[in-house]
């Protein structure tokens, strides 16, 4: 299963991931990313990818 990870030292709370893919990403109280899944099931891979590729900080990674 593709593995999703976040570098929390880079996340600045832009919120692009949880806006585009709320099925995969959530926000903590300050608006920083929270991963709802780490092992991404096949039906959510496209959504996870959408969040990853739109992060302005390059804080997210999806390893297939």
């Amino acid at each position: 299963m593709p593995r999703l990870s976040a570098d929390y030292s880079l996340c600045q709370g832009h919120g692009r991931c949880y806006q585009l893919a709320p099925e995969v990403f959530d926000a903590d109280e300050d608006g920083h990313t929270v991963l709802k899944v780490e092992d991404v099931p096949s039906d959510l891979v496209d959504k996870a990818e959408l969040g990853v590729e739109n992060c302005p900080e390059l804080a997210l990674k999806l390893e297939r």
Partner: protein
Amino acid sequence: MTGTSTAPVSDLAKSFTLFSPEYQQDPAPFYARLRSECPIAHSEQAGGFWMISRYEDQRYILQHPEIYSSKTLILGSKLSDEIGLGPDIPIMYDPPVHGKYRKIIISALSKANVERYEQLAIDTARRLIDDMVAAGEVNFTTAFATPFPTTIFCAVMGIPVADLDRFVGWKEEFNRLGLSHDKEVAAEVNRRVFGEMADYFSHLIQQRRADEAAGLVADPQSDLVGVLMHGQYDNERPLTDKELINYCILVFKGGMDTVTNVLGMTFYHLASDLNLRNQLLTDPELIPSAIEEFLRYEPVITGLREVVAEDAIGGVTFKPGDIVMLLNIAGARDPEQFEAPDTIDLQRTPNRHLAFGAGPHRCLGSHLARMELTVALREIHARMPNYRLDDRFPHRFRLGYLRGVEDLHLIIGQ
């Protein structure tokens, strides 16, 4: 190409400022030459500064505050320190102090929290749109782009809406001359504008304390002034009155005018290109992605950093004390980052634009701005679908630190 000069672009750069008349309408052709021919250029104006035009270099600078400090944000004025309030909180501080100030309001401006203002945004938008439809011909800047976000700003901040005109007046004075590179002119204007604002917020805070003591305030932290009054710096102490006033003035600078200018540029493009407008009419689901694309295509803010440790980018060495200016519009049109960068593609993905910055200073108001822009685009296209540029008026743009269109005249209707 600009068509006006065949001089090496590095020579043109020497005389560049954000206020140079030749770049006010559209800096993009000059910026494209800089990006491809001289991506780290140098201007000799306003004390001298480096001009950074590649996207990757801009993100690198924004993500490295230990090398590129925010202690200098504009070239002319000392901003709030013109009246002895110190550097603007939190924006002119670097980590770790910056984060301790920022932490106080970050949660109040989260995506979840700004949704509390969505109904006010919808009601405000509908009222203003009804007036525009009735008028038939409008100056969109004064009829919508200014009153819409500033009305919401008052509620978010906790300022009586009756005082809105005073804030708009301060905003206009600050924008006209407070950002000038002429230090004396900027200092004089800013001492007056910020002095009046400091008095205003000082009274507002005293009144709020009195009201709270009298039990008249149901939820003291329901707006940003209240959040700041009750917030703790680093969980150890409340802000001093001087810090409170400084922080309120900074929120004003960030919140009063930015969305106004994004709306102006966005509706200029929508009204000039009916194909774009029709895409939104056909498929309103495109609006969130369209907003990101307009933010990318016309990022309104140009920022600076001051070098505090020697570093090199692209073979150019920067020394402590050097100023780097991030030409946001140049980065936004960088073909290394964005496919077909000069095309407005409302479905663009990926879209890692830096309109809200990057690194620890990511715009705190970005979620509020997105909510306002979403409501504006949704309501205008639902209730006022037919609009076009009124060609009887010239459309004048400004570059500056905050890009925008001066007056956007539209004809509403068929």
